[in-house]
């Protein structure tokens, strides 16, 4: 139990997928202009992460490993992610219009989000058990969500200051992300994972 809680918090704070691995950077920079959109994107990433991790984990351990086809994992994971996003989009749009408005429109963007694929690959590398994997993916999703919402908040205050013009919109955002990463680094003292 202690291990699960550790994995959960580590993936939110010390191993934050956006700020320590710098994965999922395109939406992180493109959609962090306002907090509401950022939050929608974060929610979508969290949903998709948990569901794809579970499916990918099952396919990996029940099909690929027994058949000795581990080398196919990259391809399979990508296809599964694309398929699941599509299914999820159709279902959410049909049955949860309110949710669709808040995060459904971001779903198609997630198909090619490297944070999702990265997560599936990490969980294999780290040999997580099923439960550990669930906590890991949930934590990573929430961590990404936290990071993008924090970034959106920072960028809102950025509007009041005047960064160098040559840094542009994306430049200053990447620098901010660097500082945030340093900030998150501070958490590493409290968690041994």
């Amino acid at each position, binding site marked *: 139990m202690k291990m699960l809680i550790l994995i959960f918090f580590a993936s939110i704070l010390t191993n934050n997928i956006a700020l320590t691995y710098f994965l999922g950077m395109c939406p992180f920079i493109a959609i962090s202009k*306002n907090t*509401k*959109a950022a939050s*929608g994107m974060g929610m979508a990433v969290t949903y998709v992460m948990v569901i794809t991790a579970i499916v990918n984990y099952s*396919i990996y351990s029940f*099909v*690929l490993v027994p*058949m*000795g*086809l581990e080398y*196919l994992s990259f*391809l*399979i994971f990508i*296809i*599964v992610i694309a*398929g699941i996003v*599509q*299914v999820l989009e*159709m*279902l959410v*749009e*049909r*049955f949860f*219009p*309110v949710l669709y*408005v808040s995060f459904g*429109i971001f779903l198609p963007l997630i198909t090619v989000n490297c944070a999702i694929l990265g997560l599936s690959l990490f969980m294999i590398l780290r040999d997580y058990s099923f439960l550990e994997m669930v906590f890991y993916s949930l934590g990573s999703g929430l961590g990404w969500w936290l990071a993008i919402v924090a970034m959106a908040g920072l960028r809102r205050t950025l509007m009041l200051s005047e960064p160098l013009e040559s840094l542009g919109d994306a430049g200053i955002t990447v620098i901010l992300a660097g500082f945030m990463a340093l900030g998150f680094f501070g958490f590493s003292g409290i968690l041994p994972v």
Partner: protein
Amino acid sequence: MTYLFSLMVMNGLIVLILVLLILIKRYIAVYDDYSVTINGDMEITVHGGQTIVSSLTQSKIFLPSACGGKGTCGLCQVKVVEGLTDPLSIEEAVLPYKDIIEGKRLGCQTKVRGDMKIEVPEEYLSVKEYRGSISNIVTLTHDINRFDIDLIEPKEIDFKSGQYVVVEPIPGETRAYSIASIRRRREKISLEVKKIPNGICSTYLHALKEKDELNFYGPYGDFYLRKNDHKVVCVAGGVGLAPMKSIIDEVINEHQGRRVELYYGARTIDDMYDYEKYISMTGKHENFKFYPALSEVEEVLHHPTGFVFDTGFINNEIASKLKNGDDCEAYLCGPPVMIDFSIQTLRDKGVPEERIFYDKF
């Protein structure tokens, strides 16, 4: 053997996902038919899950669109009276907050998910789909061509001077182009198209040849000549000259005694076209004045007839040539920056806000 296995697993998985997707689309995520009432009197039945634009298109009601339904041009606005859903973030980015609360939505983004009542401008209901064939192509400048289009079906078009049509050269890619021919000639229209580097539709149009067919919808737009006695001030930048042609023609030939001035800006003389025509018109019609200005030219240019092309931006030309406090009405067309600056100058000259009309390209 492993090859066979890998192939089987990969293909099996893909087939499985496809079957799943088809099943969900067919049997689970299905929508009912809903009724959409337009402007209170017209009711159509549409299959849910489609956008308002595509469901209206099926009933031959064509909303304007200049971005191919990407939610960037804002032309496809409708007012949702009943069955309003929360705005999408794309809509919040394009429409002013005030309009959103009033129930305005983008027809290309909002989907039909229940019975709805919507309002669209009355004139959209008479918009038709036209089929035409290109009869003549004229090179006007290094990047602007004029396309003369003979109407095939319907055979005639009725429009107000200054309005535009929506062209769909590639399915799904729609763009707006002002009608650059005069209103009195109803069996054909002309479009003047500037080739934008890497622009999808303008490049495509520039590759068309004579006799090629082109479909378009129209006419659309609030930018049209009003009938009254005010002096008409036309301000055009580059290819923004297109809609001015019918406006100027209508004022001179149909509005007895009304005055019209054309302020026409471009970078260099090579970016200007049809100026010969307007120079000769100034001699023939005392009610017509022509003030060209070139923004990237150092010295004032003299035409063989003695006509002068000033240097500088078009708003400076307005500032120096337009009489203060004249009873004017202004029509502006061109790049957004030019329009913003010129509106400022016109306001300083005392032209009332409600008499300034513009189309930003």
